[in-house]
Structures are given as structure tokens and as C-alpha cells.
């Protein structure tokens, strides 16, 4: 699941937050500290993850650090998907 999840998040971030001719993203590209996704846009990214995976990420967990790369987002999502059972 992790690989598929990684690609879904990577493709979504690329499609929604990057301009057409930007440098391609990697799983480790800093998203928040790298200025690709700001704190306001993080809300729509969080909403996408919640809709897609039927989870609810509490605001306390939706920190800039937890959203700072595709890999970190995937870890977060996996944790909540596992909780959901």
C-alpha cells in the first residue's frame, strides 16, 4: 500500500501545487519548509487526504513538520488508516 499511497500523494501535490515547468518532486522534497505548500494550502491537502482515505486528521497532528514531505505525509496517513482498522 505504501508505494501506491506515495505515488497518489506525489501526483496530487504535483498536480495541485506545482506550476507546469517546476522541478519534479521527490518523496523527500521539503513541501512546507521548501515553500511549495504554505500553511493555508495545507488545509486543502489535508482535506484531500481525509476524503481519499476516509480518515480525520486532528489539527494537532496536521503540523508543518508532519506535512513536510511526501514520505512524512504517507507515514501520517498510514497511522490514521491503521487506527481506523
Amino acid at each position, binding site marked *: 500500500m505504501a508505494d501506491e499511497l506515495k505515488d497518489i500523494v506525489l501526483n496530487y501535490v504535483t498536480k495541485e501545487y506545482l506550476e507546469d515547468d517546476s522541478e519534479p518532486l521527490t518523496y523527500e522534497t521539503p513541501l512546507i519548509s521548501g*515553500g511549495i505548500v504554505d*500553511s493555508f494550502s495545507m488545509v486543502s491537502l489535508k482535506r484531500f487526504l481525509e*476524503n481519499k482515505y476516509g480518515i480525520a486528521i486532528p489539527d494537532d497532528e496536521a503540523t508543518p513538520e508532519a506535512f513536510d514531505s511526501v514520505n512524512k505525509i504517507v507515514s501520517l496517513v498510514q497511522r490514521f488508516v491503521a487506527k481506523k482498522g
Partner: protein
Amino acid sequence: MSNIGPYDERVKNFSWTIAEKELGYKPGDVINIGWYCTDRICEQGKGSKVALHWEGHTGVEKTYTYNDIRLASNTIGAFLRGLGVKDGERVCLFMDKIPELYLGFLGILKIGAIAQPLFSAFGDESLFVRLSNAETSAVITQKKHAPKVRKILEKLPHIRHIIIVDHDGVAPLKDREVAFSLQKSVPVEHLDIHPTKAESASVLHYTSGTTGMPKGVQHVHYSLISQYLTAKWALDLREDDIYWCTADPGWVTGTSYGIIAPFAIGVTQCVLDAGFSAEAWYKWIEKRRVTMWYSAPTAIRSLMKAGDEIVKKFDLSSLRHLASVGEPLNSEAVVWSQKVFGMPFYDTYWQTETGSIVIGNYPGMEVRPGSMGKPFPGITGTVLDPVKSEPYAAHGRIGLVALKFDWPSRMRTYWNNEEAFQKKFRNGWYITGDRSKIDKDGYFWFAGRDDDIINTAGHLVSPFEVESALLEHPAVAESAVVSKPDPINLEVVKAFVTLKPGFTASKDLDLEIMNFIRKKLSPLAMPQEIEFVPSLPKTRSGKIMRRILHAKEWGEEIGDTSTLEND
């Protein structure tokens, strides 16, 4: 001893000539902000002093001395002149917080052109409205932001040049584009500085209007007088400070106190071009030994959220003074700051239109947590009775924050919209659009906006602009946009939406509309919540009653509903 000294004494003996004398300016002289921020400091023998420490999100660092920023701004100014850009023309800066933004700003001013900084997260619609209104001649940008300009270029015949500062030489340049590299350019030792005078236009910042499109707030070179003195007295900025202003120069704080004032004083300033994280920010203060830190309530509340423990991991002992701007700083944040940093954040109040701090808490004056403070010396501020448009005779009554419009950095007009400018005045007072009360000791206490404008993280968002953009989404029939309380950002945007026949409310549609607005306008304007409703409250004449929706969001009394249309 603070720079301002005893507040009451300063008020009694105040004159703006204090700043004029310190800057060596006399009425009628040439006054050019670009020159004051660079050449003048070099002429004082401080050319080798560090003006700017910059660090990008990838960890790349750059350091510029005052002589470096003099040469770089000359070089950019000469390049613009070479392209045929003349004094009075508008040159937009559409960039992240990279050095070229700071240096380009000064270069534009040196040739007498008008700097028009725009927030780099703006979407193409927000960009179009502002470039079109200003009839901008040139845009300085980065390759990552150029596609947004290209999308709207056909509708912008006034734009003659799009200057790309980081062109890789590989991708072909498109219509009207030209590459410019500061690093590869031969530094220009001498540039004829345009002989701007006090009333020559300098900067055009756009701000949201209640009912109309954004308005271009036009400032002049004489604004330097206020910006210089308020930075010295309200921010207590000193020549030996290491200063960090966290604001983006796409907004007025980032130019008035992120470029003009600190460079005119000759301080070393630090810029971190990276997204927010508590760890990165504290690390930056520790690394650069920041002494004076000017930030915003949203950032301070985000730091509070990150907790007290993380603060202990860093050596922040260099800090000696902290200040805040953008929205009211809640008393909890002031108390927290005292606890973790050993000093309070001093709240300051001003607007794009005022150009500099007009009300504030000053070093040496008692800080009353949650208060806006008192008017800066030389500024006459009051609270007006909204009905009579006269100052309240008694203290403690909430009314309109109003100012006598007579300080150097006040706006001179709204670009191409003198009518809107004139509407800002009542009975000889400039009406800020904010409400407050004054206590018996003269402290102002913020009570909210007097209009529908949304203040989110210190940035003003017009509900009208968001509603107009929402109507362009194929599913949206009608919308009403209001603010909603938020623990970090003070307020966020909420949209009530009715759908066109054939569309059904869903989580996917909700997200689609959010992203639609984010890309069209900006992330700030994106509704953080969308509520799909069958109908919107309207007057009998069909006008949407935003105030009813606003009151519901804020748990306030709905008030008079006599004009409400019956279902």
C-alpha cells in the same frame, strides 16, 4: 534606555523634523529611498558592513554588504533603464523572498519608477486584477512564477517586459520575456539616481476593498521619514542590531520595515526564505544571533502551539526586543512571550494605507497585554462615534479608529481611484475601518473591523473578490463569504454556497471549489470551510445579508432582520 525615551515627553516635543535632520533632509531636497538605503550608508563609511544575510529553503546562503546592495540595486536599475523603463512607470516584483526582490525594489526606486510588489502565492486572477489596474510596464519574476504571468499576458498590453531573474538558459524565453542574472551582470558602479522629490510616487501596494476590486495604495518617497523614525522608536531599532522581519515584501510590512526602514538606519537584517516551522525559526534566531525580531500574531500563536519545550533547545539569548503586527495580538501571546523569551511582544498597529506604525506599545511604556497601545508621537488618533463622526467625549466606548491624516508616510491616493480615497474620510478624519475603544489612560483596545473585510493571518481578504471568483466555478449559483474565528489565524474565510441545478454537494466538490479559489486568487483567499446551503439570506431587494451569516459564525446577536426576505 530605549530610543524613544519617555513617551509623554516625546509626544510633547515632537516634530517630524527630528527624522529629517537625522537623515540630512531639508524640504525641497531630492529624496530617493533607494539612495538613502544604500549609497548614503556607504558614504558614511559603512560600505563593508553586512546589510543582508539571506538563506533559502535549500540551505543556500548569501551575504551582501551595504556596498554590495548599492552595486546590485544600481545594476538592476541600469538594466531596467536599458529596457526603456522610465520614471513613474510601474514595475512589479513577483517573487519569493529571494535577494533579487529586496535589491530589485531598491533598483526600481533609484530610477524613479514605482515598485509594485505582489505576493508570489497570488493566483492568475489576483495577479491580473492588480497588474491591469496599475497598467504595469514590467514584471520581475522567477521562472517558477512566470507561467502565471504568461497565462494572463494577452490581456495585459501595457506589460512590455517580463524579466526572469533565474533563467536557466535552456528553456526558450517566451513573448516579452528577457533573462537577467544579477550574478552574471557586470556591477554598475555609478547610476544616476532619479531626482525624486518628497511627493514623487514610490510604492504601490494593493489592498482589499469591501465592495470593489483591490485598491492600489500609492505611497511617496517622503514616507521614508515616518518609516525611519517609527522603526527607531517603536521597534527600537539600532544600528548595531541584527534584525529579522518575518514579513514578505509582497505586503506592506515587508517593504516598510523589511526593506526601507532597516536599510535606511543601516542595520544588518536577516531573511529566511523558507516556510514556517518552529524549529527552523528558532534555529535561525540562534544562528544569526538576532537581536530585534518583528513578527506577526499568527506566527506567534503557531510558535505557542509548538510548545515551550522546543524553545529550550535553542540559545535565544541574543534577543533584546520583540514586536508584532498584522492583527491584534491576544493577551495570552504577550504573556507567553514574557514567559518563554523573558520579554513581551510589543504590539504595533498600522495599515497599508498608513505606510508606517501609527499606534503601538513602546519600549519603556507599560505594556497592557491585548492593547494596541497609544498613538505614535506626532499622530493624532481617536475613536469616533459612528453616527456623529465626532470623537467620543467619554472613554471606554467602542467606535471607529480615526486619524488626522498628516504624517509623512500616509498614502497619497488609491491608484486610479480618487473617489474611493475620498470615501476614507469623515468630518476631517481618516477612517481606518477598524473599531476600538480608548481606556482612561489613552490605550487603544481593538474591537474588530467595521466592514466585511476578513483579516486572516494579518492579511486582508475581500469577501467580494472571493464571491466573484466563486461565481466563475461551474457548480456555484450564489455565494456569501464571511470570516470564521480561528485560533491561529484570528479569522479564516468561510463560504456559503448554493449550487446550480444538476450539481450535488459532496466532499469532492467541496475540495474542488477550495482548490479553484486557491489557484485563482491565493491560498489566503481559499475558503477553509464551505457550507452548501439551499438558499442564502437576502433582503427583499435581493441583496445577500452577509451580516446574518457572520453573526452565526461568531455566535453574535443577529440583529435587525426586518428587511430579511421571507422564504
